[in-house]
């Protein structure tokens, strides 16, 4: 039996699970604490972050999620291949136990959605890995429902765990079918490419927590972008100067982690994360900031991405390169915290950029998702009614 052959594989594989962290917008310091603690815990265990649901073994929901984000979690979970485990953590203190339990479950096979045939089987209900059906997408709260954290491993038991909404907006899942709608209005390069209406986020690597950018893409060019923060309608006014115990350097490092990781400067990103999660001295911060601000290879690869929105200038720096240099150079100093634009202004700055450049621009802008944005009605092609996935 193939499954029995896979058993030892599972135990070995569970030593290094790929983790997909899904976190809500940090409207409270507590939510931010959970996300940061989760990232620090994964780094200290040496577990890589999953690139996409297909790359995921362990879905880690970091914090209390609202109804809209819960839909996304359900849609994403439905597309994670077995063996898989989902854990939800409400507070940083629960993390250690939750991750240990999740790994133990993964080593047992993670109770995937397949009832007959093992994960390696080619002839089971998912023969050749067919699209997961809606019923398989439903979730189960594990037997230890009284534990501090919740863990899900796979079989159907509707609604025991996540708040549900009647409309299943699967279009927010990153793998949802792209909706094509004719040719681009703004055909910059004359290639007559189809327009794709898609939702970027909230489940993307190094993406601001809780943010969705409803984007129109012509090829890989962003021709329209509207922001929505799930479960946080907005835009809200900044309620005075929010006091956080973490200070401006923490904000700078959090933004730098994302930019450096997206730019593929992995070692610098790991260093920035270690500084963010640790208690660095000002000397360490200044030295790191100076190294990043002076890096020629980084500046060269980030060059030429403007940060100017059509209606409003979101940040003082005109380009991603200048923004990153300013963030890095400010480390360890006594400068005011960096300007963080509202999500809808940050999204407006993405229009006209190539998707990769847009990702870097958004990471460098580091919008304050706690300010909220949206909601935005998802694009519906004329006359085709409701699109369902699966």
């Amino acid at each position, binding site marked *: 039996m193939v499954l029995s052959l*896979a058993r030892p*594989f599972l135990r*070995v*594989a569970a*030593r*290094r*699970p*790929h983790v997909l962290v899904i976190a809500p917008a940090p409207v409270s310091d507590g939510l931010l604490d959970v996300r940061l603690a989760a990232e620090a815990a994964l780094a200290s265990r*040496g577990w890589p972050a999953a*690139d*996409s649901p*297909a*790359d995921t*073994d362990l879905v880690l929901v970091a914090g209390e999620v609202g109804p809209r984000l819960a839909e996304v979690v359900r849609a994403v979970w439905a*597309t994670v*291949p*077995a*063996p898989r485990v989902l854990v939800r953590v409400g507070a940083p203190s629960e993390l250690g136990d939750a991750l240990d339990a999740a790994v133990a479950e993964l080593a047992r096979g993670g109770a*995937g959605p*397949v009832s007959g045939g093992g*994960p*390696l089987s080619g002839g089971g209900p*998912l023969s*050749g*890995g067919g*699209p997961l059906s809606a019923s398989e997408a439903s979730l189960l709260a594990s037997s230890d429902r009284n534990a501090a954290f919740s863990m899900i491993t796979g079989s159907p038991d509707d609604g025991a765990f996540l708040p549900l909404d009647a409309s299943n907006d699967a279009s927010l899942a*990153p*793998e*949802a*079918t*792209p909706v094509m709608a004719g040719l681009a209005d703004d055909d910059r390069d004359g290639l007559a490419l189809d327009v*794709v209406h*898609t939702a970027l986020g909230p489940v*993307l*690597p*190094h993406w601001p927590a809780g943010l969705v950018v409803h984007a129109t*893409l012509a*090829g*890989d060019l962003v021709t329209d972008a509207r922001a929505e923060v799930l479960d946080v309608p907005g835009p809200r006014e900044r309620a005075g100067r929010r006091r956080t115990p973490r200070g401006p350097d923490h904000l700078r490092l959090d933004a730098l982690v994302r930019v*450096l*990781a*997206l*730019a*593929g*400067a*992995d*070692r610098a990103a*790991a260093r920035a994360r270690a500084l963010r999660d640790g208690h660095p001295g000002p000397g360490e911060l200044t030295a790191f900031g100076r190294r990043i601000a002076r890096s020629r*290879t980084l500046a*060269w*690869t980030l*060059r*030429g991405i403007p940060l100017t929105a059509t209606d409003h200038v979101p940040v003082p720096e005109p380009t991603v390169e200048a923004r990153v240099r300013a963030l890095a150079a400010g480390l360890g100093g006594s400068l005011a915290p960096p300007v963080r634009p509202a999500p809808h202004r940050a999204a407006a700055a993405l229009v006209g950029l*190539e*998707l*990769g*450049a847009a*990702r*870097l621009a958004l990471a460098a802008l580091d919008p304050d998702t706690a300010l909220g944005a949206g909601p935005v009605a998802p694009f519906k092609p004329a006359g085709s009614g409701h699109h369902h996935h*699966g």
Partner: protein
Amino acid sequence: MADPATLLPLLLLAPALVLAAGLAAVAGAVTAGDRPTAPVVETLRLLAKQRRRTPADDPLLARIGLAVLPVAAVLALAVVPLGLPRGAPVGLDVGIVWFNAMEVLAWFAVWTAGWGPNAVTALVGGYRMLPLGLAYELPHMLALITPAIAAGSLDPATVAGAQHGLWYAVWMPVAFVLYLVSTAAMAFWGPFAAPLGRDLAGGAAAEHAGLDRLLLRAGRWMLLVAAAAMAVPLFLGGGAPPPITGPDAFGGPAWAWVVVKLLVVLAVLLGLRRVMPVLRMERFVTLAWVVLIPLAVAQALVVTVVVLL
């Protein structure tokens, strides 16, 4: 070809390349600050992982592309003289052309792997193979052809044999550096990994799980090792010992020298990843057409003129 002695290296080629690619992946994990066991754990993880499909996809096309990648790497390596007594596993007098043709299959592989799943990030990852190819392929072809011009042959074994006394890495250093850079780009690896970029949630790999993902990851390492191996006969004198040490200072079998030189080339490539972030395609295309292609043409021109004189 019916002679079993000639068939044996051919049969062993695929397992040998898989093994070499695995070792290269271990070295890559160590350079990236990961545990050396990470590639082994990853392989077992992907073998135990369910495969996966997306709505309205084209799995046949995607899986053809994914399967082509390791096959192309083996076929490319087949014409590389590895210092074995009977020469390359397949002695071909236009070996360099064959080698390049097999490498270009990577374009097809990444494009179809990105196209197949019918998803945005995967498709954009596939798109990125086109600017990458437009940027690296011309410098790569010129870097391949320059040693062939100097040696007057498209057979890699003849090119290796023509370098008595002076390795082409010294005689045409620009072509050698361009070959190394374009090799990393051809294997869409390291600084040129934009088609599988993290900003696209894994790009062309974003929607592939299990065995499909393993084929893409392993195929990429195999392609990198095969292309690095070609640098040995083209630029580093093949199985000959370094000429600096004098005629017989370090003897040793030819295959051992090939292995040592291959390790050096791979170490240089792994070092490249440490110093460079992932290049955005618009930046790399600009660099290629403004700097790399003129350099490659100038190098080929210099070599041609010297050969004609």
